[in-house]
């Protein structure tokens, strides 16, 4: 038993509830919130690898005392290896993902504590709750548990948008909830079909019963379940047709909230993507659909991003478009491709959070995010402008920074898998991404300043600049030493690619 594994979910939930109890004692809350948020990236680093069974119900094979008196009807069959408890599995890949999630959450919460006037309240609650839900999504090996936390993450997303006080946030939140109420029952329906056919909700057991031939893998019901789960995946991660609503959600949140929300959707993307690959990798169609949807997301997301005039909406569309790179890596199905895709996911979370918080300083200073009304802010804060420029370089894949390494790996993987066209599209769209970024950068920092632009807050909190520096350091470390991250991902990608004949 490894007690630190459940703590990774319990700590953020306790933070969420506890900090609301101390309402109105702002200074204390600030200190406690920072200390508790600091444990989020530290916990996964300290925990050792292992599996946690909630309630302590191990599979019978691992618990001889429980299985002693049982009839051979149970111990002699597959029931002996089934997992009766909700199982959380914490391996190398989960360690990396949870560390990155914790880091982004810590920095986003840190910045929000100093940029918003009231540190306690619903905003912090929603952020911590979302972090707890997404940690559970990454850890869980139980598909119904996944669904429950999926819904909680969606509600937390809505909550972050509702309290942002950006114009039009209620409308966007309601749209997101209506679309979510169509999509998530259908995800539940897919889970119900899987449960009905295999009699299990534990993913390892579902795979075991599919592999051993207890259940016919070509059963039409299972194909339908795969379709419905893929549909839920589209909703959870904001792939087309959900890309418009997802980018609207990012643009209606506060910048630090958006930095966290994009991390939520990328982690939902990889968590559910890994589940789809694990269960349905024997269907060639599932990989084709992943590739097709990812291509569509890249093309639509990035071309729509150029046309936007709202700064946050633009980065929102870019974030959706970058999801496509991860999907291509996963869809290739080779070990190299999956490693590259997951590495790209880690990089993208860091870089997009970097960009959101970096451009967020503009919103903090002027309260304006329409690029036609902005300009000439280089004079105000040239230091932040330099950092934002570096973030843009990182997103486009300029060598010493991290996305270069992962995009290079992705292109190598696509050539190795015999699909060099994907590499060409990736390079093309990277160039357009960079152009989009430069358009925003030029409009905000270099264009002559409009006369009616007024600066509300002259001074950017020092914490924000510190957060940007930490993001830059992470980008540089991952860019110079990609092995730091890829070593963690090696295990999961070989096991995922092993399922493909």
């Amino acid at each position, binding site marked *: 038993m490894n007690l630190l594994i459940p703590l990774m979910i319990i700590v953020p939930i306790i933070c969420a509830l506890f900090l609301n109890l101390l309402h109105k004692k702002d200074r204390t809350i600030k200190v406690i919130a920072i200390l508790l948020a600091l444990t989020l990236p530290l916990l996964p680093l300290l925990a050792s690898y292992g599996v946690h069974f909630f309630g302590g119900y191990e599979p019978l094979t691992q618990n001889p005392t429980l299985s002693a008196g049982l009839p051979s009807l149970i111990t002699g069959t597959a029931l002996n290896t089934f997992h009766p408890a909700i199982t959380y599995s914490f391996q190398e890949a989960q360690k990396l993902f949870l560390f990155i999630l914790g880091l982004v959450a810590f920095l986003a919460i840190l910045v929000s504590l100093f940029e918003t006037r009231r540190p306690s309240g619903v905003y912090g609650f929603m952020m911590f709750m979302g972090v707890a839900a997404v940690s559970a999504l990454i850890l869980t090996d139980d598909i119904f548990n996944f669904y429950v936390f999926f819904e909680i993450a969606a509600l937390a997303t809505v909550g972050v948008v509702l309290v942002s006080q950006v114009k039009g946030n209620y409308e966007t*939140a309601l749209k997101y909830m209506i679309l979510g109420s169509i999509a998530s*029952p259908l995800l539940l329906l897919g889970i119900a079909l899987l*449960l009905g056919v295999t009699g299990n909700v534990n993913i390892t057991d579902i795979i075991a019963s599919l592999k051993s031939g207890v259940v016919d893998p070509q059963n039409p019901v299972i194909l339908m379940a795969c379709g419905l789960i893929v549909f839920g995946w589209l909703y959870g991660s904001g792939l087309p047709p959900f890309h418009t609503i997802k980018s609207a959600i990012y643009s209606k949140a506060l910048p630090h909230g958006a930095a966290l929300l994009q991390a939520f959707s990328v982690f939902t993307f990889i968590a559910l993507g890994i589940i789809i690959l694990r269960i349905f990798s024997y269907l060639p169609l599932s990989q084709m659909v992943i590739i097709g949807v990812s291509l569509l997301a890249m093309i639509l997301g990035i071309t729509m991003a150029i046309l936007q005039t709202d700064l946050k909406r633009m980065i929102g569309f870019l974030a959706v478009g970058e999801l496509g790179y991860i999907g291509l890596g996963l869809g290739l199905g080779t070990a190299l491709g999956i490693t590259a895709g997951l590495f790209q996911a880690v990089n993208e979370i860091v870089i997009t959070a970097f960009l959101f918080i970096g451009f967020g300083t503009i919103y903090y200073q002027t309260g304006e995010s329409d690029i036609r009304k902005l300009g000439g802010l280089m004079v105000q804060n040239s230091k932040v402008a330099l950092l934002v420029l570096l973030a843009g370089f990182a997103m486009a894949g300029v060598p010493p920074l991290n996305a270069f390494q992962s995009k290079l790996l992705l292109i190598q993987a696509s050539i190795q898998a015999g699909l060099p066209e994907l590499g060409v599209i990736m390079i093309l769209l990277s160039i357009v991404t960079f152009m989009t970024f430069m358009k925003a950068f030029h409009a905000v920092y270099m264009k002559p300043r409009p006369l009616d632009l007024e600066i509300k807050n002259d001074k950017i909190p020092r914490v924000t600049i510190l957060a940007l520096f930490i993001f830059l350091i992470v980008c540089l470390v991952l860019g110079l030493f990609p092995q730091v991250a890829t070593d963690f991902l090696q295990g999961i990608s070989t096991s995922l690619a092993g399922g493909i004949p």
Partner: protein
Amino acid sequence: MIMDTQLASLFTAGALIIIGIFAAVFLDNLIKKVIGLAFIGDGANLFLIAMGYKPGGIVYIYLPGMARDWFAQNAAYPLPFALVLTSIVIGASTMAVMLGIIMVLYKKHGSLRASKVLGE
């Protein structure tokens, strides 16, 4: 009967889901939309329940005096039922949040028509 109970409930669940999607797509009133969305959730729950049903079975409560093997062969499968309890509560809370947002939006726009409140 033409159909057994399990199949008929699966069809009922499918009909509920289709009615709900129909309402979400074609009805313009926000409250009607929310009612329709609640039906989609109900349909998915009924589907799960029907998955656990056992024709001619008994309720999955182990009473003293029952033979263990007989119970194991006749009881309904309780796992989906446990899941539905969670799902019902999630559905109700999601609906409450949506209705709350609708009330705020009504104060702002003075209308419940989706094409007016949520258009563009």
